[in-house]
């Protein structure tokens, strides 16, 4: 069995297990932070973070559970932040929408749609100027591309050849609004191809396939310093914000095909096909689940920040 396959599965399972744990405890109302769940979309951050490894500087939207966990593996800090405790990387000041842990490669998150897209252009440009091997990558949705700053950023990045990785997680929805209600064009990647940007698209939910595409993107970046735009289709399992399904709200149908081709299922089958024992997989899963549950419990038990921390970090240093 390939270590890549296993690593990807670990990331996928970790994200899923962490969010299932949130679903289990959220009703207690101790995690007072609005949850935008990654569930269903984990294969994209898992693949991206796996491929970028230590080179990745990750910038995300409010929908950042999976990117955070896949990049940092910091389940303990993650739950610390969900509970607003001092064990969170931001000591509770950020919560679910603002995960930031630059030391571990998850730079920051923004709850203003599309606002980190230009930031990553600048971050990538600095990497180019400073000749680092870092790759700045930003996750955003199909709603973010409606905003002018997405287009400005495509132009700037193409013009300046800033080696940024733009990852559009296209789940077809902005909150409850479909692309059809928001977009006056048919095919976004076809438009972006007119910019001096390398474009990669996929409809696959196979993390390993996406991983290969990210490796292609990294190759382009390393060889040409060209920005890369990845348009990746996916499906949001739950409501926009919150831990429940909301198919009864009527704004969309539940599409079973996305569950049938779910990345966890695909990747687990791959491990089996590669000869891994079912019981080893189960054991691995249990270990992860235990780790997640322990991290959540530890966060519950942690301290809140002192009131005088309010003023810490307003100015740097």
């Amino acid at each position, binding site marked *: 069995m390939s270590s890549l396959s296993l690593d990807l599965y670990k990331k996928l399972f970790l994200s899923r297990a962490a969010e299932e744990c949130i679903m289990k405890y959220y009703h207690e*109302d101790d995690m*007072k*932070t*609005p949850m935008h769940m990654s569930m269903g979309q984990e294969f994209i951050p898992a693949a991206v973070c796996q491929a970028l490894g230590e080179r990745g500087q990750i910038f995300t939207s409010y929908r950042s559970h999976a990117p955070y966990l896949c990049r940092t593996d910091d389940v303990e800090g993650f739950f610390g932040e969900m509970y*607003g*405790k001092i064990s969170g990387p931001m000591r*509770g*000041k*950020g*919560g*679910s*929408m*603002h995960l930031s842990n630059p030391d571990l490669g998850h730079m920051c998150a*923004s*709850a*203003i*749609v*599309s606002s980190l897209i230009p930031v990553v252009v600048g971050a990538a440009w600095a990497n180019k100027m400073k000749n680092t091997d870092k790759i700045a990558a930003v996750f955003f949705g199909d*709603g*973010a591309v*409606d*905003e*002018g700053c997405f287009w400005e950023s495509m132009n700037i990045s193409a013009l300046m050849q800033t080696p940024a990785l733009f990852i559009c997680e296209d789940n077809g929805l*902005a*909150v*409850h*609004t479909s692309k059809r*209600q*928001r*977009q006056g064009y048919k095919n976004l990647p076809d438009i972006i191809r007119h910019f001096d940007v390398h474009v990669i698209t996929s409809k696959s939910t196979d993390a390993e396939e996406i991983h290969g595409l990210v490796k292609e993107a990294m190759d382009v970046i390393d060889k040409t310093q060209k920005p890369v735009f990845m348009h990746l289709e996916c499906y949001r399992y739950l409501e926009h914000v919150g831990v429940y399904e909301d198919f009864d*709200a*009527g*704004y969309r149908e539940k599409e079973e095909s996305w569950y049938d081709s779910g990345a966890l299922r695909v990747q687990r089958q791959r491990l089996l096909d590669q000869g891994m024992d079912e019981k080893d997989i189960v054991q691995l899963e249990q270990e992860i689940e235990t780790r997640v549950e322990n991290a959540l419990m530890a966060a519950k038990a942690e301290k*809140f*920040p002192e*009131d005088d*921390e*309010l*003023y810490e970090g*307003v100015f740097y240093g």
Partner: protein
Amino acid sequence: MVKMTFQDALLDATTLEMARDDSVFVYGIGAPDHKNIFGTTTGLVEKFGENRCLETPLAEDSMTGFGLGAAMNGMRPIHVHIRMDFVLLAMNQIVNMLSCASYGSCGKLKAPMVIRAIIGRGWGQGYQHSKTLHSYFSHIPGLKVVLPTTPSDAKGLLTSAIRDDNPVIFIEHRWLYFAEEDVPEGDFSIPLGKGKVLREGNDLSIIATSWMNIEAMEAAKMLKEYHGVEVEIIDPRTIAPLDEEIILSSVRKTGHCIVADNDWSFSGFGAELSALVAEKAFDSLKKPVTRIGFEHTPCPTVRKLENAFYPNAKTIVRAVEEKLGLPKSDLSSQDLFSHERKFKGPF
């Protein structure tokens, strides 16, 4: 009169105006979806059709310009933003374009546009979902700015805002949405630019905006209970144009003034209120004006720090006690407002 919540009152005003004038339309991200902007746009699509309650792409800047263009050509757009923070994307259109559309045509064009922006707090909003920023708009000539506190005011002022031939920024605190009171039925408007005495008293004037009026009302109860002090509470409601007279005559009567603005204090609208009172009621003031506002930091997410960030009724009580030289009352038994217990009244 009929009992209505604040959000019902907003919906009522909108529905009545849309029925009265078919140039009125509502648009914004999420306006026609099933959550209906906290229920303030419910039924509009069904009653008036898809062309009068519009979903939009995520493009706050251009959709503001869109409203301006529609207004120039005779429509009366109401642009809704579920968070004030998103209005920052539209500052160019609001400040450079909308505010001076009339001036920039020597008074020939008009821009009757309402921008509804929701402010508020709680439950992990954090520093990107908690801004108020009314001072930004009140600073600009050509814009009117309204912050209603009660359901009746919400209805009456929104009606006037929609009928006004100028751009109006209409700012709603989401915790107020659950307030309930008797609201006049049918056609009902309150002129823009008139403040309101929310509570009468002779000992001290509190000038408060938006949600801070609720905290002030709570504080007033405690102050009466513990000290027999009667504070007067003034809600300007419209901050541009500002009803200076209602503020100044209260301060001239009481000789004491506390400004409780629902925002950061420094360089904010609270500064305007404090400056106004000290400049124009100077001789009546027995003590300097006290300003109360948010702590001067970005808003943290965790509830504990959020509670430290926002001033509340206790903050006001303490400020009054200090100003009047009263001993500190024991407030430990006083429960502060928490939005988990939805808010009913006092209005």
